[in-house]
């Protein structure tokens, strides 16, 4: 029996997490906003039904949402992260292989079952996640990843399928793929879509049947693999465990524009601290640091610039990275501009080695060990008592530019002081 792949994802994940811990939100329209309460990034089913668009800037619709009785929430990353880990652990215990693809979706190899039994298995999985975590999932099954992604969407569009759909064998794919516009295939970008359209390959079926030599000449192996996947021949393997990241970026828009150097330094320092934490969590070092700043692209007199420094030796030490980054901020800063966004990009990442001799940094091995122990301690304390328990003074205290999250729900599952309350009355 050919093995089957599944794409399993959570419906309206962010909004559903909010609804799971607040009974007043159940059955009501809920939207979740992006960083700085910028745009709508998630909508509950009820909010979708009201016709609220994805990606709509919040300020444009704030009044309208209030009139419609829509509940608005800021992104609660602590809550979503914890719930995501629980969902993945729950799925991981029930499939032979799982590839966590994003915060709310995963590819999986299904158990070796016959067609009918597979649908029943998917339905059971749905019931299980609903009961254990209060979240709805959809399960799309197919012989390949690209088809599993399409099957997942088909599982959702027709209520009769109850969130579970499986593509038939490769022989019966035509009517299904004929109905899928080429743009909606996973992995088809704008350029490939345009190329297909120009040649009359408007549907997934047409692309799957196109001349392979033509596809290969223009799109290489990547194009051929996509074609094979659409024919139900699996070419993209499941990737288990996190792939080592090649680069790490921390960047945010400010809640208020920044005009002076001191505040800009604080902002960049904060991002450096975050990026260094990420690096240590990934057990990696960086040898190349970039700082970038820019004004709003929607206002006249745009200024944006970046500067990069190569580090003499790869490191994940916050102090070393701050010493490298802060001079760059002063170099990039221009008086008279209102800065809107800044970021830190760490590149040339490498795995944490056994021996790190700092040839050009005047630290003895003992001093070096103590620095590493210090970083560990900082990470532990911030992990246990909340981000920012221990911080570098250069990041500023309660800065005015910090992320705006005016509609934040409690960190129900990660902070002792914010646990959900049950009434015994």
């Amino acid at each position, binding site marked *: 029996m050919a093995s089957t792949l599944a794409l399993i994802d959570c419906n309206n994940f962010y909004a559903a997490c909010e609804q799971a811990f607040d*009974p*007043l939100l*159940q059955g009501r329209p809920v939207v979740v906003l992006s960083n700085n309460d910028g745009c709508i990034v998630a909508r509950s089913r009820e909010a979708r039904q009201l016709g609220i668009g994805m990606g709509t800037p919040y300020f444009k619709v704030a009044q309208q949402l209030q009139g419609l009785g829509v509940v608005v929430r800021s992104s609660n990353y602590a809550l979503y992260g914890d719930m995501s880990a*629980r969902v993945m*652990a*729950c799925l991981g*215990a029930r499939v032979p292989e799982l590839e966590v693809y994003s915060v709310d979706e995963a590819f999986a190899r299904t158990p070796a079952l016959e067609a009918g039994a597979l649908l029943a298995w998917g339905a059971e999985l749905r019931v299980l996640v609903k*009961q*254990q*975590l*209060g979240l709805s999932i959809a399960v799309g099954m197919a012989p390949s990843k690209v088809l599993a992604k399409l099957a997942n969407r088909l599982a959702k569009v027709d209520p009769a399928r109850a969130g579970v759909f499986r593509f038939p064998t490769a022989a019966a794919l035509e009517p299904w793929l004929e109905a899928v516009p080429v743009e909606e295939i996973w992995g088809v970008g704008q350029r490939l879509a345009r190329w297909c359209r120009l040649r009359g390959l408007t549907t997934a079926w047409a692309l799957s049947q196109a001349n392979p030599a033509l596809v290969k000449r223009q799109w290489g192996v990547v194009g051929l693999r996509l074609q094979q996947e659409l024919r139900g021949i699996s070419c993209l393997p499941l990737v288990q465990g996190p792939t080592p990241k090649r680069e790490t970026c921390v960047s945010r828009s400010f809640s208020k524009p920044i005009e002076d150097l001191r505040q800009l330094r604080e902002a960049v320092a904060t991002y450096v601290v975050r990026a260094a934490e990420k690096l240590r969590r990934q057990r990696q070092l960086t040898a190349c640091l970039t700082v970038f700043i820019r004004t709003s692209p929607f206002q006249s007199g745009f200024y944006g610039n970046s500067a990069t420094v190569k580090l003499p030796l790869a490191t994940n030490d916050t102090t070393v990275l701050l010493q490298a980054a802060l001079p760059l901020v002063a170099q990039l800063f221009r008086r008279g501009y209102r800065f809107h966004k800044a970021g830190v990009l760490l590149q040339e990442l490498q795995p944490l080695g056994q021996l790190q001799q700092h040839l050009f940094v005047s630290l003895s091995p003992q001093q070096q060990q103590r620095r590493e122990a210090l970083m560990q301690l900082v990470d532990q304390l911030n992990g246990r008592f909340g981000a920012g328990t221990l911080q570098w003074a250069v990041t500023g205290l309660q800065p005015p530019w910090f992320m705006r999250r005016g509609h934040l729900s409690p960190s*129900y*599952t990660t902070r*002792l002081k914010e*646990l*959900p*309350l*049950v*009434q*015994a*009355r």
Partner: protein
Amino acid sequence: MVVGGFPSPADDYIEAGLDLNSLLIPHPISTFLWRVSGEAMQGAGIFDGDLLLVDRSLQPRPGRVVVAVFEGAFTLKRLERFRGGLRLQAAHPAYPPIDLTSATELQIWGVATHVIHPL
């Protein structure tokens, strides 16, 4: 590191230390910590301000203390059989039971398994 000398005769009897997490939380994926507010479950040993472990993977059978959604709030009660149906029973004389007639839609969020109460 090299350890010399005689092996300890106790080596064969070393056991893993006791772990409260595994003792109290057999299902970590579906177990959540809650905070109790109010006196209505005092008779069951659950007091105002206590921490409560709630497991969503357990079946809410009669006799169990449950977190239920009732009239737009989370409420803590014991699920009981009553005249062929079910009701939510407090553990305090001042709080009357809530009868769950067929008209009332009851949603059980999870089953309470342990209470953590400071002495």
